[in-house]
């Protein structure tokens, strides 16, 4: 992987403290986000993708501990910072939040304080990071509210969140996250709580803004359809591990990992209307956190399960192309058997 990244996550491991035990919920995650590109993390709920996104801004809650790895970020001064070395309550990370890395949350309903006006909550970000006077700050907020497609932004500025619809709140949230022009925007399932037509509008808005401001984007979703519309690169997560990653086209057209294949089969296609193709759900369900298997986490549900191999430790990385890699014994055997030995550690 080349050095032109904006944010690089290396061997990130995060554990959850339950009673006296410590259970890993994210293990050895590696990925890099390039400037101006959209990187998508895909997985079922509980796969650890939200935890990864929160760890980048050091927003993890009590009981969730980062136990290893690095998150390297090239800040506005061109310096590379390891975010994991910063104090989560310190000045350094606060200077990065919203100013350099913005974040949008899943629930637009609850991510604003209900007793402060929208304007107050957006203006606060401006006052924290930009050197503007009161009038300019208000003007900038109203401009931004207009830019994210809120009609009558002047009025919206003084309104309360409960006077907004879900879609409007998510637009306001985007305004709040982007108002300081961050280089990276983290969007954690930004459209999940919205209905489908609003979803499409919000996605379009995000894509336009991202192009306009030349911002990188870490997009978290469980919805492959949404990913296909917006992402450049994709990583598929299962039980806290990345099982396959690569450019979106490769992943969608030539999925290699049995889990990725399963996910793609489970999506309805427009082309299938009228044909008698049934959606194929992946057999079984995600094992309980406490029943984390030692081998490949997907082994129990996998159609290509190999006895005495797949249940013995997590598979090594198999490179299919410079950008496309997969973690699977079955794929590795195929590649090794038919082609030249190109297994890279």
């Amino acid at each position, binding site marked *: 992987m080349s050095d032109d990244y904006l944010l690089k996550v290396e061997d990130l491991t995060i554990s959850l403290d339950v009673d006296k035990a410590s259970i890993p919920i994210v293990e050895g995650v590696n990925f890099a986000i390039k400037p101006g590109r959209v990187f998508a993390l895909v997985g079922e709920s509980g796969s650890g993708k939200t935890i990864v996104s929160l760890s980048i*801004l050091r927003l993890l809650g009590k009981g969730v501990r980062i136990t290893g790895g690095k998150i390297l970020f090239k800040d506005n001064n061109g310096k590379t910072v390891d975010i994991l070395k910063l104090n989560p309550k310190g000045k350094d990370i606060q200077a990065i939040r*919203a100013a350099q890395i913005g974040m949008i*949350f899943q629930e637009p309903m609850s*991510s604003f304080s*209900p*007793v402060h006006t929208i304007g107050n909550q957006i203006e606060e970000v401006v006052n924290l990071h930009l050197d503007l006077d009161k009038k300019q700050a208000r003007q900038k907020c109203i401009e931004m509210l207009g830019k994210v497609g809120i009609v009558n932004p002047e009025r919206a500025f003084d309104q*309360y969140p409960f006077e907004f619809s879900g879609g409007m709140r998510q637009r306001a949230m985007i305004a709040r996250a982007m108002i300081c022009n961050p280089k990276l925007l983290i969007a954690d399932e930004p459209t999940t709580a919205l209905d489908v037509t609003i979803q499409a509008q919000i996605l379009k808005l995000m894509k336009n803004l991202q192009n306009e401001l030349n911002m990188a984007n870490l997009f978290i979703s469980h919805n492959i359809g949404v990913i296909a519309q917006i992402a450049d690169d994709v990583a598929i997560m299962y039980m806290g591990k990345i099982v396959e990653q690569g450019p979106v086209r490769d992943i969608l057209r030539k999925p290699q990992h049995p889990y990725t294949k399963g996910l793609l089969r489970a999506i309805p296609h427009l082309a299938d209307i009228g044909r008698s193709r049934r959606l194929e759900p992946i057999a079984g369900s995600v094992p309980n956190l406490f029943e984390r298997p030692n081998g490949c986490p997907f082994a129990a549900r996998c159609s290509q399960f190999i006895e005495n191999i797949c249940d013995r430790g997590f598979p090594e990385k198999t490179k299919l192309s410079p950008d496309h890699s997969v973690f699977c014994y079955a794929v590795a055997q195929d590649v090794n058997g038919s082609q030249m030995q190109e297994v890279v550690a």
Partner: protein
Amino acid sequence: MPLLQKILVRLGSSVLMLVAVSIVAFIIISLPPGDFADSYAANKISSGETVTLAEIEAIRRQFGLDKPLYLQYFKWIGGMVYGDFGYSWGYSRPVTEVIGERLPMTILIATGTLLFTYITAIPLGIYSALRQYSVADYTFTILGYIGLATPNFLLALLLMFGATTWFGVSVGGLFSLEYQDAAWSMGRVWDLLSHIWVPIIVLGTAGTAFQLRIMRATLLEELNKMYVTAARATGLSEFRMILKYPVRLALNPIVSTLGWELTTVISGAPIIGLVLSLPDTGPMFINALRSQDMFLAGAMMLIYCILVMIGSFISDILLMIVDPRVRMGAST
């Protein structure tokens, strides 16, 4: 303007409530067998004077006691509109005077108690929530349990006992002897302050414990909400973020219990007044009840209710100011 309309509706319901309370109070004071004239006669006889039946009848007519109960009620309530609360034979003075000179102290103590309650409970509750499971948190929790479980009068007794045996001071009353009947001066105010903390602490302990628990629980709940993480993601410092968002929201239930808190204080005040022999309405009220000085007792019941209503009215208005959702009538 919807806000004004809401306040007016609220005011109207308070008045209705007051009418209902006055009826209840009147029924209670009419319950004991015998009436004012009988008590009057009994009082005279016990002091060695003779009373004729004709005299009793005269009094009965003079005070309208020969009329049906509902007419007596209208006379009672009608008099109140003009500030005439009836006559106290226990004090041999008009009720208005007897209450008038003691009520300010009751209001002072109640206000002081509420201030004490909130000024201690809110910061301690915030601290407990932010340092959950710390030594201080456990200490407050245990003290809270004890505070809630101690009857006010027992606390007063213990304080009195402790003060007299270990410090040799008497904690009763609101003034030292030399200021008892003196005119108001800086010295008297100072003397009052050096006494008033005792009833305030006694009356406020249970409320403080209760409000501390509410503050701690709601703040813990608020801290887990999404908007807190979202606010943190803006780069706001932890301290400012907590004060601006979750603490602000956790104050709402506290504000809404203000009226209720005042009710408890007012309910507990008479007993404490008696135990600590305060010159407020407490001992007067209980003595009136014991000696069945019913006009005085009835008027006082009504005044206690009015105080509580004013309190809950203020609390509702405050809640409208603090919470835009209540002000604008939003459902969420």
